[in-house]
């Protein structure tokens, strides 16, 4: 039986000389101890076996309807987001640091949001420039002085972490608006349990299946105390949204109704849903609709996705919207640069998880540095997300760079720049062969009465060789992420 061929794992072309950290192999080419079990299992599988398992996996996703629809001129087709067979494994010690770091970060970011939508002490103390916050498009003046239970603004957060060449994790981006991907974390886990049951059992992997009930209790904890058994709903833009599967999935696993804007009615500042037996009051809305679209009376008037009067009901304290509107100001790419100072300011601690070095183009000195080094930097528009509106200097043509330079000079406040980071690589099954691809890590953090980091994550994969872009809208895929338990007891919890 031929074993699956492994091509030269450390041979990814890189531009700035640093060799990316490989999740499985040391620089010397030895298998890291936490990958040993998987490595042994793979070695016994022929490449046809691997391909067969990959097909079974894809069929599982297709059957479950974990797909997005591509609408064509004549017919529409369903595609699955590519999922890689081989899990990415993170040992207990490394995870402990990530967990502590994210908890610290979320505490500080929630305090920051409570402050800027309250007394604005941090702005008065000059730690973060006032105009940077108040001029940000994601800052919602409507949220000023509004009571948010437990000061938990970002109830669900999905931060993007990357592993740098030295092996240390750093935060690339905080997603505090309506982060998605958690259903892939759960579905990937289902799939990998089927694919590598023996290895999974032997590895003491921490369970992720508590996520839906933890989310539900976080959401219920946001409701007013005097409302027994609060009614929680999931608000979706509808079946045509690319994350619809996730909305339905979470609603089903929480046992909460999945509502659209057209199912809701606001009357006397209370929110109701239209049921078969009349109107029923709603207490907590886990909304998967952007701020801009939740209420045409308060935000975008042309929105048909939300419900008129929702924000007033929220202001009146009759309903809770999760995440709170206006949380986006804390994951603004320019505000991001100040997060270490924000942590220091509120908690008096140094950030456990570092930021990536970030140049603010609004500062003239930093702008000229960015312009001089465009071929080495990644430039991002502060308001954009999903891999759009960015320039990856080393991979861009001279023409693209000069166009971007013009845009930078015209509107410097709109841009930040970061060095091109070599994301770590993990072994992936590509066309029947094992080959390293760049990956990032998106853990999910719940904030309510307390902050909980789910012991799992979505590992996003840049499937194109050498590519650093992991976004699913740009040809990225995902894979299961095994967080190993320190002992057997921890694996159960």
């Amino acid at each position, binding site marked *: 039986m031929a074993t699956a061929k492994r091509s030269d794992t450390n041979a990814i072309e890189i531009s700035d000389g640093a060799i990316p950290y490989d999740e499985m192999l040391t620089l010397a080419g030895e298998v890291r101890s936490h990958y040993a079990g998987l490595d042994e299992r793979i070695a016994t599988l022929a490449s046809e076996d691997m391909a067969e398992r990959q097909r079974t996996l894809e069929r599982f996703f*297709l*059957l*479950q*309807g974990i797909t997005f629809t591509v609408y064509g001129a004549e*017919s529409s087709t*369903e595609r699955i987001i590519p999922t890689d067979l081989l899990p990415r494994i993170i040992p207990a010690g490394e995870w402990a640091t990530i967990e502590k770091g994210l908890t610290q970060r979320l505490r500080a970011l929630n305090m920051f949001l409570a402050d800027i939508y309250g007394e604005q002490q941090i702005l008065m103390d000059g730690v973060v420039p006032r105009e940077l916050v108040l001029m940000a498009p994601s800052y919602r003046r409507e949220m000023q002085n509004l009571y948010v239970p437990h000061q938990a603004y970002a109830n669900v957060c999905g931060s993007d972490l990357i592993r740098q060449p030295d092996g240390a994790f750093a935060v690339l981006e905080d997603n505090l608006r309506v982060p998605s991907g958690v259903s892939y974390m759960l579905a990937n886990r289902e799939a990998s349990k089927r694919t590598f049951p023996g290895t999974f059992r032997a590895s003491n992997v921490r369970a992720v299946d508590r996520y839906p009930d933890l989310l539900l209790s976080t959401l219920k904890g946001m409701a007013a105390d005097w409302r027994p058994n609060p009614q929680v709903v*999931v608000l979706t833009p509808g*079946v045509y949204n690319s994350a*619809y*599967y996730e909305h*339905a*999935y979470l*609603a*089903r696993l929480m046992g909460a*109704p*999945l*509502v*659209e804007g*057209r*199912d809701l*009615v606001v*009357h006397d500042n*209370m929110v*109701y*849903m*239209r*049921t*078969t*037996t*009349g*109107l*029923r009051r709603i207490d907590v809305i886990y909304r998967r609709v952007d701020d801009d679209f939740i209420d045409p009376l308060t935000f975008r008037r042309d929105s048909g996705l939300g419900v008129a009067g929702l924000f007033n009901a929220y202001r009146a304290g009759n309903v809770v919207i999760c995440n709170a509107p206006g949380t986006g100001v804390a994951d603004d790419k320019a505000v991001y640069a100040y997060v270490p100072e924000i942590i220091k300011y509120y908690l008096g601690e140094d950030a456990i998880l570092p930021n990536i070095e970030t140049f603010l183009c609004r500062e003239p000195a930093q702008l000229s540095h960015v312009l001089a080094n465009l071929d080495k930097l990644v430039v991002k528009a502060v308001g954009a997300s999903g891999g759009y509106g960015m320039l990856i200097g080393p991979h861009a043509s001279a023409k693209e760079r000069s166009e971007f330079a013009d845009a930078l000079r015209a509107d410097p406040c709109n841009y930040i720049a970061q060095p091109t980071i070599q994301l770590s690589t993990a072994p992936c099954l590509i066309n029947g062969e094992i080959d390293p691809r760049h990956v990032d890590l998106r853990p999910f953090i719940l904030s309510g009465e307390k902050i909980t980091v789910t012991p799992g994550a979505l590992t996003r994969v840049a499937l194109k060789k050498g590519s650093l872009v992991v976004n699913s809208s740009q040809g990225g895929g995902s894979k299961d992420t095994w967080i190993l338990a320190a002992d057997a007891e921890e694996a159960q919890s």
Partner: protein
Amino acid sequence: MMLARVADSLYWMGRYVERAEHMCRLSDVMLNATLDRSDAATQVARIVLAAVGDNDPEKANSPYDAARALALDREDGGSITTSLSRARENARQVRDQITSETWERLNLIYLRVTGPGAAKAFNDGSSAFLHDIIADLHLFKGAADATMSHGEGWRFLLLGVHLERAQLIGRLLEVFFGDARKRPITDHFALTSLLRMSCALEPYLRRYTADVRPELILEFLMFDEDFPRSIRFSTARIEEHLSAASRYVDAGHAGPERLAGRLKARLQYADVENIELGGAGALLTTVLDECEAIHTAIYDTFVAYSLEMRLPA
């Protein structure tokens, strides 16, 4: 308690699933007829096309193409492919309300029928293709029955199934017995085809033996208490599910459960012995009209009710 929109989607999912199953039988019976005498095939094709409301006389002359179009034509609003796509689209709308087992069944059929291999599979073995869809739809219904809570959502799903079924069988009977002025169809082949289209051949034979007579078929498909495709059976289920679903709604005198109760009683206490073939048309018209009225009343009561009446005081 469930969302009005969700109840609506479950109801339509039931209707489309039932329609797809029925169209599979019509298509299959048409194809089978082409293997027989050519005039019989034309006659069966004419019956089927009349039952689905297609009055193009040309189509009956090429029964194979008609059967193929009924199965795979995406432009045709009544085709199997279209019905399954719509059933699945509705299921996607309420993905959180139906069990994974139920969803998977429907999704599987949908993927096969709309997939690139569908046309070839039909050409290679149309009967097997249609047979598999029917068998899979039975699995779907079985999965819904065995895994979904038999609560409100399941009731709306079955309401859709039974209302659609009553109307489909009603329309089929209308083609045979609807017009008193025309001589009733007594051709043996046509009559057994009618039983096949209603999935009633074997139960009929067990009840009446191989004595295939139009008045007995009418009696069986309209008034039989136990046969699951008789109109009486369906209306009894409609009444049952509607009275359960209406328990918490004050819909007044126009409530759908009242309409359903009346229709059920009409069939239950009909003077079966004295209904002649010639008089069946009037009764069928009444039944179909009342089914339509129940459909409208369901919509007005549970889905598109006026908000003013339901706002908290």
